[in-house]
């Protein structure tokens, strides 16, 4: 995961979902950040908006880690024509 993606992911989790920045680490799961399956639907919508990429509701589960999300976003960004994002 690129530093920029992690930074933006952290900013999203902090600003929109109130997760303290110091808790956002690559290996931590969404469940550990208090994002349950309902919250993950919201997260997917916010991530779509933030990164300009399609983000399915089933792409992540509460057991997915921040790193999983970062990799997913990174690969979608690489595969998209969203030039300049990431």
């Amino acid at each position: 995961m690129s530093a920029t993606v992690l930074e933006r992911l952290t900013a999203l989790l902090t600003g929109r979902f109130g997760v303290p920045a110091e808790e956002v680490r690559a290996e931590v799961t969404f469940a550990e950040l208090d994002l349950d399956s309902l919250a993950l639907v919201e997260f997917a919508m916010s991530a779509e908006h933030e990164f300009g990429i399609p983000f399915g509701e089933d792409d992540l589960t509460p057991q997915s880690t921040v790193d999983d999300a970062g990799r997913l976003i990174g690969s979608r960004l690489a595969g998209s024509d969203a030039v300049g994002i990431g």
Partner: protein
Amino acid sequence: MTLGRCEAAVTGIGLVTPGGIGVLESWKAILAGRPTATVDPELAGMPIDFTCRVPGFDADELLGRRTAWRLDRYVHLALVAAREAIEDSGLDPKEWDSGRVGVVMGNALGGVRTFEEQHNTLLREGAGRVSSLLIPMMGINMVAGYIAIDCGAQGPNMVTTTACASATTAIGTARELIRTGRCDIVIAGGAEAGLTRPVLAGFTRMGALSGRVQDPAAASRPFDGDRDGFVAAEGAGVLVLERMDHAQARRAHVRARLIGYGASADAHHVTAPDPTGDGVAKAIRMALHDAGIEPREVDHVNAHGTSTRLNDAAEARALRRIFSDGPSVTSVKGVTGHPLGAAGAIEAASTVLAIEQGRVPPTANLDRLDPDIDLDVVSGASRRQRISAAISNSFGFGGQNAVLVMAAA
């Protein structure tokens, strides 16, 4: 004086009102008779554009964004009030027998703000953009659920909804849980935060609101001859009710006793009260009977007193029929406006404070008592009075009436 059975102790109170955040700030405004109605920027361009909002309430700051983002404002207000009430009671949720702690809250409109926002999203962006939290945020039952999650209360959990009587119904229902021995402790009260444009438009179209747009601060004037409607408000109030022997065993400070509850239906009209006050009188009589006291033993009435022509006249008629000795009467709605499903809890807490401090707050804006109302309504400044027993009235659209009887500890 025989004050009947004494089973439910009030050991904690919490308030979030247009007077301020917390019991201290709220009571200060109520006792000073300081009206809180003011022009509401969210209602710009509406025919009636003023309300009573809780000033400076920042849910992210008070609850933390991690909690706050998932909740509607009406639950925000309730959680802050519940935390204050529990702290005031001296109870430690880590130590209580959680299965014996209930939560009963009153609410009328649910998360109507969230519903409206998400409906707008649906119309603008389609169903795929609607929040997954819409249902848990708007549900009318959710306020009791979230309080239970917040403090770890695993006993009976419910929300009562009787429009503007909702919180009084909740506190009365909570007392039943104490009285039947089902619970040791019940967190009880009400919350409301429905000051949205459609809701205000609806109340305006009903003709229920004061139209005093040139002078909002003077608009809520219960029992005054020039009253012309209520002022919509938001807020929350929470009481910790506790079985008396449970409170005594832990040497808790008992602030007051909840000794009676009565409820009735007008069975008359969906919004207009029965002008004879018959339904209201039935609820008051039932509450007094439940408390085991006579009308002459009631020193004080915290009235529903909404500032509508019809309510105040019907309530006054019912009070005159029952109380010949003229207890002092006040309506805090001159200060707070009408916070609908939260009103009964804010007023029950005010009644506890009046009993404790021996001080009746004035009815704000009562300049000239309606000549048709023959009651000792306190106006101008607060009045010193020793109060042994008091009642708190709430009446809802639908003709739903609820009355609490409280007594000094």
